[in-house]
């Protein structure tokens, strides 16, 4: 695909889905891509009960403390992406949700008219590539 063809695609509403183990270097390529496409970036972190329970059992930590730490780390990731996005003039909105990821992504695609989803390629993000109704790019 030539550069001209890439630019003719419309990705003006991009969803970045962050999972708890997403490394923080993801924001730079995402923001560069949003600058190219002049996209509004929606950044989503999901509090999934099964992941929180799994983490609590692995660390043998109180589940409430795990949930608290999990959510705070999620917000930190969201605000780190936002900080870089603002420095680069990219419109951003941050979203923290409880629930099931594929259902939430479907809701976001419909409600916010998302036309591209960005995720770190991980075992737990495979289901998004299969289920999403719009293109998904693995980073």
């Amino acid at each position, binding site marked *: 695909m030539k550069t001209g063809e890439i630019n003719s695609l419309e990705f003006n509403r991009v969803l970045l889905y962050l999972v708890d183990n997403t490394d923080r270097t993801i924001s730079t390529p995402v923001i560069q891509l949003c600058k190219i496409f002049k996209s509004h970036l929606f950044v989503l972190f999901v509090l999934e009960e099964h992941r929180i329970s799994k983490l609590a059992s692995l660390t043998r930590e109180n589940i409430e403390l795990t949930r608290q730490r999990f959510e705070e780390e999620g917000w930190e990731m969201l*605000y780190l992406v936002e*900080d870089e996005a*603002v420095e680069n003039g*990219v*419109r*951003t909105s941050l979203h923290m949700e409880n629930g099931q990821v594929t259902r939430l992504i479907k809701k976001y695609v419909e409600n916010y008219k998302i036309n591209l989803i960005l995720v770190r390629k991980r075992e737990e993000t495979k289901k998004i590539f299969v289920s999403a109704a719009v293109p998904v790019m693995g980073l």
Partner: protein
Amino acid sequence: MELRISNFLKPDAVIMEMHATEKLEAIRELVDFMVGKNIARNREQLFEALAKRENLESTGIGEGIAIPHARTDAVDDLVLVFARSSAGIDFSSIDGKPSHIIFLIASPENKKSEYIIALAKLSRLLRKLPVREQLRNATNPQEVINIIKSNEE
């Protein structure tokens, strides 16, 4: 040592009732208040940093909460200001609801880590309905600080 929001919120950084009715007017009111209380030094620099962010994203996180924030050298240290509006202010929140509780966070450019942690802790705290209700019903600045403190523990 773990950062605690309540350590950064002082009684003279609390506005129990705001006059502003819209977003940029509210930012202006908060900035004027901060300069008047010597919480911030440079009025225009702080306003511009906060307004720039508001223009690129909504700091209204929903459920009646807005957290306007910026990194700027108009402040010397991480600062927090709490403000309340009975009528509500349109911060273009993601859920479309007006904001009744406003927490402003500003930090110098070189304190990014502290600033991100403070934003994360505050956002988590304010997602809890009982905390929001307590803050809406607080009657004085010290009570606001005590609510934050007790919910952080």
